[in-house]
């Protein structure tokens, strides 16, 4: 049961969704939300990822040397699952970082929700969106600073 990558895949989605839900609702309980989305769920996914790599890496086809090698890697269901879990864990971790950074820098939570959605779906694009938003906030703060 646990050895079937397709069954394991079904368990990863709800786990990641729970983390993203906690980020969306984070203004209600910021510290709990960080404990879930920046630590507990990424750590749990990382345990699964590490176990998959420990068990399946040595027999996996391909490698990191060329695009063809990387594509060959993903022909192995267990390695493809590991890659998917990698996305889920790190995207959620970045989502938690965005939420935490926005809170620390006074960026309203409502404005980061449009950044969290692409971070969830297309990781780096969401990171880029938040970086732009953060730059805009920093520029505004500089330009509207009252001279002393």
């Amino acid at each position: 049961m646990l050895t079937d990558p397709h069954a394991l895949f079904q368990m990863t989605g709800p786990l990641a969704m729970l983390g993203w839900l906690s980020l969306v609702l984070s203004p209600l309980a910021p510290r709990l939300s960080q404990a879930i989305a920046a630590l507990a769920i990424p750590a749990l996914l990382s345990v699964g990822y590490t176990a998959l790599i420990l068990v399946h890496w040595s027999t996996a086809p391909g490698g990191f040397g060329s695009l063809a090698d990387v594509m060959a890697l993903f022909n192995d269901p267990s390695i493809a699952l590991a890659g998917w879990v990698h996305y889920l864990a790190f995207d959620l971790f970045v989502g938690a970082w965005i939420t935490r950074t926005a809170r620390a820098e006074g960026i309203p939570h409502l404005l980061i929700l449009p950044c969290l959605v692409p971070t969830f779906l297309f990781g780096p694009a969401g990171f880029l969106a938040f970086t732009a938003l953060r730059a805009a906030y920093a520029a505004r703060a500089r330009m509207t600073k009252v001279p002393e």
Partner: protein
Amino acid sequence: MTFVLSAPRATLPDLRRLWTDAPAFTALALILTLALIPIYAAMALYTRIFQGDSPWMKPVKFHYALGIYTVSLAFFARFLPEATRRSRPWRWFTAAVVIAILGEVVWLSAAAALNTASHFNTEIALFAAVYPLMGVFAVLLTSASLVMGLSIWRNRATGLPPALHLAVALGLILTFVLTIPVASYLSGNGTHFVGSSTRTLWLMGWSRDAGDLRVAHFLATHALHFVPVLGLIATWAFPTQATRLVWLSATGFAALVILTFTQALRGAPFLPFLG
């Protein structure tokens, strides 16, 4: 005044001192324990069996064993002279021991990971090349008990009753002196069984119908626990005879290791009546 100093302490030892007396060993023990989580997960994912066991059983056992070993060393570090603990040679030595232990466990997990692909000959050649280095690492990590035992032996300011002081030092020294010959024979033997084993003991995996060299290895390495505990009991129960009893129990313990070692060499199981 002398009476107050020699009276057995009624309080339990302060475990927070692990972090101040031997931070590297304490951190390593914690890391070895936490690393069991992904290893157990790998075991759950990989259900194929080799010779009755998951290939991940060996890393699991070593993580427990080395975790217990390092946390024990961290505990005994409080009986080293304060100046030794602060000294540069000691810190370099502990760093070397930590590296040796990490090297061993990484090697073991790599071997378990490659067990699924043992037909790749290049990997086997690599492992064959690394094997002697792992032997050096094993001696280095075991030597920590000898170094600490000798240092504690010479330390007159441990604050321990004389018999217990002796028991702690003897236990640590015996761990090295007894483990090295047993373990080197074991590593040269190719297998830990003498004869063909068909049944093993629950948990420890010791053979029930063949000689098993790991029994003597286990006892030898745990001298650093058994002898101090016997010393503690002797100090508590027979305070006037305690020092003599510690010498007696250390000798008896060494004899037990030799006995179980020769028993295994003969191909006879340990305590066959256990079933």
